[in-house]
């Protein structure tokens, strides 16, 4: 379906081209908050925070994935996501993510001086994003 609202979306990881195609809307989480990108968005570069990525291909078809780190470059009619870590729901190991969540939570609760709070926080966000993406 050729849709004049569609724009080119490309998601690249260091190991593969994760997604390449047209979308009419992309939703994701950045360090500044959630954003939704439509065609002709102003040029913008933003840094990804762990969260769920929704790719609206048509009005009825939506793909979701867990986008964990990377950054997004928006240039008018094309959007490129340079993702260090992105997974389709069926690639996620829910048990492992759950385990990681518990572990990160425990580390945050301990509040020991030795733990890197920022890192634990990120790990928690990542595992939560994974679990949520897998539930869809």
């Amino acid at each position, binding site marked *: 379906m050729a849709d004049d609202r569609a724009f080119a979306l490309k998601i690249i990881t*260091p190991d593969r*081209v994760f997604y390449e195609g047209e979308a009419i809307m992309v939703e994701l989480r950045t360090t500044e908050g959630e954003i939704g990108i439509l065609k002709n968005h102003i*040029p913008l570069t933003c*840094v990804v925070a762990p969260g769920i990525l929704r790719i609206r291909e048509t009005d009825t078809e939506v793909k979701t994935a867990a986008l964990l780190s*990377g*950054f997004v*470059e928006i240039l008018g009619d094309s959007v490129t996501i*340079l993702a260090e870590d992105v997974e389709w729901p069926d690639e996620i190991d829910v048990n492992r993510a759950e385990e990681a969540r518990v572990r990160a939570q425990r580390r945050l609760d301990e509040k020991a001086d030795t733990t890197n709070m920022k890192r634990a926080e990120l790990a928690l966000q990542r595992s939560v994003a994974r679990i949520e993406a897998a539930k869809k």
Partner: protein
Amino acid sequence: MASMRDIKRRKTSIQSTQQITKAMKLVSTVKLQRAKTRAERSKAYFNCMYETIKGMIRRTGHIDHPYLIKGTSDKKAVVVITSNRGLAGGYNSNIVRLITGSDLDKKDVLIYAIGKKGRDTLKRRGYTIQEDYSEVINEPLYKDAMEISETLLEAYSKQEIGEIWLAYTGFKNTVSHIPTLIKLLPVDDTEREEYKENNPVGAIDEGILTDSLDGSKPAGSHSHSVGAIMNYEPEETEALELIIPKYVASLIYGALVEAVASENGARMQAMDSATSNAEEMIGTLELQYNRARQGHITQELTEIIGGAEALSS
């Protein structure tokens, strides 16, 4: 002339060496194929990353971010990517020579070694080995590159090191591998120092972004839109802070993948020429052996005839 038995023994020994080199060649051919596909698959990411960073720095102009200006420390961290195993022709020694031949001062250099061969040689030559990640080279993962870059950036922000360099073998194609030494940090757009053995005029583009082999246009094809005003969220300095570590990690990963491909390519070539050299030697020895055998028979015959003549007369 060597005796027949000596020649024969020598020939058998060379034959068994040839069998080994032949097997090694086959193994590295297979490994090369795998490493090559991997290097090609990840190329898109690096092209794009490189374009983005370059664009960002050009657009933001001169900002006083620690990642963009030289640190106060004289120490220079050099990430040296070599192999864990030898028998790969000049692969490892080219990298070592690249470092000893560069104008990096020996006492200022801290080596972050990836690959045992480079580590040992540099250690012997009196360089300081700061860290050793040699086990990574067997099967490089992006996570490894992230870890290494984290360590480097931590030392960098603590002012323990003032510059970060990367020495690896770029993979251009199966037969051409280019030892490359590039400066990772501080990112310096105006004067990128470049050391390339074969190609001193080559810009950084060729090192990291060796011609895309499949001919497809690089992922960073949007680079023509440099004129567009880019907005940053969070604002530029902060965005740089977050993106530069990813940039360093991706460059290290790219170098790792390319180095693995180069290593196997170099080994394949070395083993190929070793096999054909052995072939040649076996040929020469075969000739010598036959000649010795003939000489032996002739001599025996002469002796018998001589003996018979002496009896009959």
